[in-house]
């Protein structure tokens, strides 16, 4: 019994130590970022956005919208994209084997007619392109009907293969972009065209906001439990994403974020991967790896101004699926690129960012649940004193709540997108509520995702539109091994 007692106590102290370490590291980054965010509160004035809009130097962008069975949303979404403020861009909608009226709606809304289009095969894709359509009035829209249902990554790759412009951006149908979003995210490319290969922007939660003509006109936080917590989470992630990480140029974007890539680099690394939800996370790691291997100077920029709003799941089931999926993707990405971890050859991405993701994101799911189990058991069996439990609650959970609170306050003092007292109060409540139950639930979901990755299990769910139906890595291989000059 003494052995068991010592083990339990050992674990208990390990958990406490782990959380203190994790939270302290986050606090350092958050404090730095928050400080800068608050000071930059008026920075939007320097953005120079009107000049960019008028500038012929602004690189044209191809927006790619992969959809499947989204008849209700598709017309509004596409209209919203076409109305973005940017000197030159095109919208490519890839209809990945929709079984409902998605295409019919598009056809009616935009007067689509079939046209000839040569689509490159630069990026390997599964599923054939059936037809390509363009609006009769000649506006910058292209609708590609593809044989499906495939993985979302394939739809994205088809879109990139059809893209005309040097920058590409995958847009999530569940996301609302501000009118100036493209201007905001294109800024790094204009300022530093030689080095910047990708840029991502902060995203916020759209649920509960007032939306007019496909734009968020008045951000608000929806009521309830899950949505405010996610709203606070996104604030924290995007705060962590700025300064702290992006200075390290080892920035890994938030899943489901809004990112723009240079098309040639996107093609160089083989395009979207099936295991990654057509996603940004694994793509970014691959870019780091490939460009380091090629010894090309490069930079991945992060733009902290919020310009993209995403609709987050508001039911337990959907949220559980989403978080399990993210966890699985992260695990798979880290596994595939395990050669980079702790490898000095990959600079800060390899030495700092990836290990941090491994230890603090992936492993934390296990430790969170372990902590709950250990402390519950320990308290029940009288092996751990209530003082130690209290210590865990404050140092582990309370500390976490403090971090989220700092993020909420930073937002309040800098960007101030949420105007009402109610929103502020909800976010503060969310910061506390997150640690009181959500984190543990979240850890459970992440653990399931992790287990799924380890066991290579195919998830039974895939009801979210556009979600890839299979698990397992099957990364796109470039059609040619051509070397690209990353200037």
């Amino acid at each position: 019994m003494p052995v068991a007692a010592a083990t339990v106590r050992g674990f208990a102290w390990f958990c406490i130590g782990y959380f203190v370490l994790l939270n302290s590291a986050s606090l350092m980054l958050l404090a730095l970022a928050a400080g800068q965010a608050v000071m930059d509160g008026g920075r939007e004035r320097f953005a120079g956005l009107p000049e960019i809009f008028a500038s012929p130097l602004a690189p044209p962008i191809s927006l790619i919208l992969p959809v499947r069975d989204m008849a209700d949303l598709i017309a509004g979404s596409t209209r919203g994209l076409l109305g973005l403020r940017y000197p030159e861009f095109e919208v490519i909608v890839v209809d990945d084997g929709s079984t409902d009226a998605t295409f019919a709606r598009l056809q009616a809304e935009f007067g689509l007619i079939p046209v000839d289009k040569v689509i490159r095969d630069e990026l390997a894709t599964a599923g054939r392109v059936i037809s390509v359509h363009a609006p009769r009035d000649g506006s910058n829209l292209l609708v590609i009907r593809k044989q499906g249902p495939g993985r979302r990554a394939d739809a994205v790759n088809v879109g990139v293969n059809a893209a005309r412009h040097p920058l590409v951006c995958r847009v999530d149908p569940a996301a609302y972009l501000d009118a100036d979003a493209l201007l905001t995210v294109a800024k790094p490319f204009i300022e530093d065209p030689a080095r910047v290969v990708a840029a991502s922007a902060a995203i916020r939660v759209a649920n509960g906001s007032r939306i007019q003509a496909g734009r968020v006109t008045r951000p608000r936080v929806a009521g309830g439990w899950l949505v405010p917590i996610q709203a606070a989470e996104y604030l924290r992630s995007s705060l962590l994403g700025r300064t702290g990480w992006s200075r390290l140029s080892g920035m890994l974007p938030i899943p489901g974020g809004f990112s723009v890539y240079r098309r040639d680099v996107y093609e160089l690394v083989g395009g979207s991967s099936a295991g990654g939800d057509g996603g940004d996370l694994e793509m970014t790691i691959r870019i780091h790896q490939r460009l380091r291997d090629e010894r090309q100077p490069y930079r991945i920029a992060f733009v902290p101004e919020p310009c993209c709003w995403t609709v987050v799941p508001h039911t337990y089931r959907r949220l559980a699926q989403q978080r399990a999926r993210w966890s699985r993707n992260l695990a798979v990405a880290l596994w595939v690129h395990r050669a980079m971890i702790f490898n000095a050859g990959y600079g800060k991405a390899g030495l700092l960012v990836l290990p941090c993701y491994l230890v603090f994101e992936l492993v934390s799911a296990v430790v969170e649940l372990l902590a709950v189990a250990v402390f519950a058991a320990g308290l029940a069996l009288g092996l751990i004193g209530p003082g130690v439990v209290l210590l865990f609650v404050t140092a582990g959970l309370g500390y976490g709540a403090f971090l989220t609170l700092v993020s909420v306050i930073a937002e309040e003092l800098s960007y101030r997108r949420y105007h009402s007292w109610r929103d502020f109060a909800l976010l503060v409540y969310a910061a506390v509520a997150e640690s009181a139950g959500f984190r543990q639930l979240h850890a459970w979901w992440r653990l399931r995702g992790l287990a799924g990755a380890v066991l290579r299990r195919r998830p039974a769910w895939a009801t979210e539109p556009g979600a890839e139906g299979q698990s397992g890595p099957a990364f796109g291989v470039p059609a040619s091994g051509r070397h690209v000059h990353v200037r």
Partner: protein
Amino acid sequence: MTSVLVVDDDPDVCDLVTYKLEQSGFDVRRASDGDAALREVAKKVPDLVLLDVMMPGVSGLEVLERWRSDETTAGMPVIMLTAKAQENDVERGFELGADDYVIKPFSPRELVRRVTAVLSRRQSV
């Protein structure tokens, strides 16, 4: 008095244009987006419209298209307000039947000149 409708989502631009036009003797109404513009014109057709091309929501070009397809407003003079380097928008605007365009940043005096020029052109036709 000749009535002018100014449509622009930037309140500063609206202020400047409104003041200058009123100083020059016009009766000015304002609208800050496409929908408001459509409503104002539906209430009473102005003698001329100054229309910002890039607006959130319904874009200026869409609004122009709607006006041109409606009999009551098909002949209404329209001057586009556009940012530099928006050749495509300008071309499209002329295709849709705009009378002239003014580039932002603009000179208020020149704007008034253009307004009077377009109005007198229309009257002599």
